């Protein structure tokens, strides 16, 4: 029981607890915030196993981009989540069965690879031992040298996806009102009519 074990149990217990809170909390914004907490602790777990690159990617990509996107969606969409949540417990049996099947499959896969040992033989190990180089360096070495071709191709696919999204959705409408600062500044104060508008009533 060293400091590592202590941190492992700390991160693991917070991850499980916050994952539970994601589905249990009434307020969807709280759910997303708990999700972010779960991501942070999972990143901590990665860090403990020496996968510092994955840990940082998890924070940058999942917390920085995906979770914030979720937050925007949750806040902007007018969905009554408490209504959706009614009868939540009636899905417990089927959810439990799916969870059980997943657990059995995981145990089988892990068990067979430990017992059989064949999986380890088939797997090609292109990276050097993690004791020798840090894994950021190992990934970088592979990604930007041996797999540079695939890396660049993936980039081109993303470029096509971006062009496609713009081609299919962007439209230049003629009557869109845009801010013209010169017009605003040059406006004659005599022409401006001031109304005192009460909040929530409109003109």
């Amino acid at each position, binding site marked *: 029981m060293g400091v590592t074990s202590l941190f492992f149990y700390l991160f693991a217990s917070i991850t499980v607890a916050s994952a539970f809170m994601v589905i249990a909390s009434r307020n969807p914004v709280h759910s997303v915030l708990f999700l972010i907490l779960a991501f942070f602790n999972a990143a901590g777990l990665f860090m403990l196993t020496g996968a510092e690159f994955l840990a940082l990617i998890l924070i940058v990509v999942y917390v920085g981009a995906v979770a914030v996107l979720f937050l925007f969606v949750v806040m902007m969409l007018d969905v009554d989540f408490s209504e959706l949540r009614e009868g939540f417990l009636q899905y417990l049996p089927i959810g439990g069965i799916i969870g059980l099947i997943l657990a059995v499959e995981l145990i089988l896969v892990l068990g067979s690879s430990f017992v059989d040992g064949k999986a380890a033989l088939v797997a090609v190990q292109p990276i050097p031992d993690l004791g020798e180089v840090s894994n950021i360096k190992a990934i970088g070495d592979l990604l930007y040298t041996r797999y540079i071709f695939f890396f660049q191709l993936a980039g081109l696919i993303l470029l096509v996806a971006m062009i496609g999204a713009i*081609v*299919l959705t962007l439209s230049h409408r003629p009557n869109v009102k845009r801010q013209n600062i010169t017009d605003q500044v040059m406006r004659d104060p005599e022409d401006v009519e001031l109304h005192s508008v009460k909040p929530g009533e409109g003109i």
Partner: protein
Amino acid sequence: MQLLTEIPGLNLAAPEVFIAVAAMVLLMIGVFVGEGSSRIMHGLSVALLVIAGGLLVFSPENGAAFHGAFLMDPFARLMKVLVIIGSGVAIALSVGYARLEDYGRFEYPILVMLATLGMMLMVSANDLIALYLGLELQALALYVCAAINRESLRATEAGLKYFVLGALSSGMLLYGCSLVYGFTGHTGFEGIAAAMAAERSLGLIFGIVFILVGIAFKISAVPFHMWTPDVYEGAPTPVTAFFAAAPKVAAMAMLIRVVHGAFEPAAADWRQIITFISIASMGLGAFAAIGQTNIKRLMAYSSIGHMGFALVGLAAGTEEGVSGVILYMIIYMAMTLGTFACILSMRREDGMVEEITDLAGLSRTKPMMALVLTALMFSLAGIPPLAGFWAKYFVFLAAIQAELYVLSVIGVLASVVGAFYYLRIVKLIWFDEPEQDFVPMASELRLVLGVSGIFTIFYVIVAGPLSAIATTAARTFF
């Protein structure tokens, strides 16, 4: 310059690098010049594709690059030249259409160029990851092209349909790739072939089946052809012309390389599958086209049938068979592009028409176009001495040499049934009364139609050298 020396074999991929950079430069020009640049972009992209083709033809070096993921050999070179010709002609065909239908978008030629890049990488792919990435690059650009005229409800529907079914096929292909990787431990084709020669398990056969299903979607072979008629009909006609030519050639080239490069030890297994989809495609192509009234739908069924005929050569599993498939794809592309140039010139004062009956009496209103279209129809039906006959002759010859008698007999019968609907168009052209004249043909359509017609009619003159080239390319695998 240091970078160039650090990546082994980058010079082999020079045409691809050129097209990628050119597409990005064109994109920048388009973004800054705006919608008005559509015409210039069409011209520029054709010119750049011609330069890339020149780079390809005048770089005699062969070999593998990027740790064996990218292969440059005579086969790849020939197929890439075909793909570039197909794409370049497709861009040229769209110039007039984009102007008259008023949807000129500068992104279209750029997307075609990026799709061409994807196709070239598919042809050269010697690794499952490279294969998938090339395929996806091509497919993603094609989905957008299908829906590029977003004012049209049918084009949008076609794009969506193509996207959903294409995503499904990609999923199957990936599942097959994961099975093959799982059972062999390799993604490179040489590694897969070596592992397969040592041991073949049932799981590996499943992997092969799924990969073939994924590729059969792309060449629209039965029973994975469902998207073809709807997408062909819904997409703007120049886009359909593009779909019918270059992507088919690229997917067929990829299929040849996958089965002969990676799955050669399991030849007995995949030859059964290819034989089945070949028979099914020929049969459906022949019978389903009879009832069609829309010429684009008819061409869709025609292309399904032709893919079936081309697969006859692949089913033989021999060098003659592969060389037959290559010849078939060359001739198929020439005939298809010519036919689509005709379809694109079916324009009256009030817009495009697409019904077969609109061709009635063409011999009296446009005698030259009628003559060439008749030759193309006879050629598509496989009547000697036109190009289409020789295409079928070589694949059936290879099949008979490989003792696939049943397949050959079914193929010839399907060809006879298929001749009916091509001859129906010929009858409409020469023996029916004209209703209304088409507007004069645009010059680029005339050029494409002329070249395609000359190639089809006088194929016998170039038959010798073309066969020699195809044989050299096919020898890559044997």
